[in-house]
């Protein structure tokens, strides 16, 4: 049965990500991208990047939204529920099991070191997914230079001029489209 097969695949893919996703939600994006684009081919590299952008427009956690959307695309509502639960239940269950033990030891310095390791690991992973996205954007050829320039402007606006995320994103897209339809190579 193809549906059962698809649901099992979702369970395995997102379940394993859910078990090893130390370091927070955006760090998970690298694992999700490798699994979903490179391994399972549920999204193309371009679709993955577009999905990340569009998800900033809506409330919720990026990794969960991506999982849910892919789950739905692969196997409908059953797929959506499987993907979301597979991604989240491992962590929740582990917390439920480990709660009393960890609560006793959480003030030791070694725990702070573990948290620090996860934090820096997360940075490396976010850097890696960013790198992947840059590589696939570069593959677009002629539009790249202007696109990169706009992207840098958007980044600067976000970081140094407190640009709002949603407004900034919509403005970015409007400018991008405007330049394109004016005939510029973008």
């Amino acid at each position, binding site marked *: 049965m193809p549906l059962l097969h698809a649901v099992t695949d979702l369970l395995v893919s997102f379940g394993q990500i859910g078990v090893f996703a130390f370091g927070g939600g955006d760090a998970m994006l690298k694992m999700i991208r490798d699994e979903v684009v490179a391994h399972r081919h549920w999204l193309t590299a371009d679709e993955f990047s*577009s999905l990340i*952008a569009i998800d900033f427009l809506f409330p919720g956690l990026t990794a969960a939204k991506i999982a849910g959307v892919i789950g739905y695309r692969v196997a409908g509502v059953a797929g959506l529920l499987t993907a979301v639960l597979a991604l989240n239940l491992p962590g929740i269950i582990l917390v*439920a099991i480990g709660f009393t033990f960890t609560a006793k030891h959480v003030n030791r310095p070694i725990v702070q070191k573990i948290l620090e390791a996860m934090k820096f690991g997360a940075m490396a992973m*976010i*850097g890696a997914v960013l790198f992947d996205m840059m590589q696939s954007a570069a593959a677009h050829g002629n539009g790249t230079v202007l696109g990169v320039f706009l992207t840098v402007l958007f980044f600067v606006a*976000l970081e140094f001029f407190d640009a709002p995320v949603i407004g900034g994103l919509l403005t970015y897209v409007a400018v991008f489209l405007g330049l394109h339809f004016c005939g510029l190579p973008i």
Partner: protein
Amino acid sequence: MSMQTESAQARSTDELWKILISFGRVGLFALGGGNGMIKMISKEAVDMRKWLSGDEFGSLLGMTFLFPGLTACKLSGMIGYRVAGIAGLIVAALAINIPGIVMTAVGFLFLLNYTGVPFVKELLLAMQFAAMALIGAVLYDMIRPTAKRRKYWIGISLTVAFFLAMVLFHFPVVICLLCYLVLYILAPFWSPATEPVRGSTANDGLSKGTHP
């Protein structure tokens, strides 16, 4: 006897509704990404519903970071579990995620249906480029406060090696991550946050980080 079971059942259905509504609200209205969600969960669960005390929330939050997964979901699941067992866990975990997923799915899949239209094709391309700025901003926000850790070269080298292993050598992420975590934790260096000081608990605001 049967009246008791009926009222117990009514009570737990009532609890499940409350979980659905509270966490659904968070999933629908939480602004500010992961951190905004955590604040809103606190308002719902601690202030409004009184499902747990502020202290309990704080210690739950602090230790969920040690486990894999999304922080807001772990919190929701644990609170849901406490209130209404496994059913509560599942309802909470779904309620917080479904609103955003549905909205994103509608938007994204709608667009994908029209990739033949040049406007939509260009729109998707614009979004691909925009995504880089957004993720770049997320990364920058994480790196910026740690700038003063520059001199801890062991940690930095390990992190760079981890990055290169993934990006240059394409080793599987999970394996790289686990090796990295083990090496980092065992490596004999301590940054100011983790310096074992007698009698005090190290705290450099790690719990204020951008853990979604």
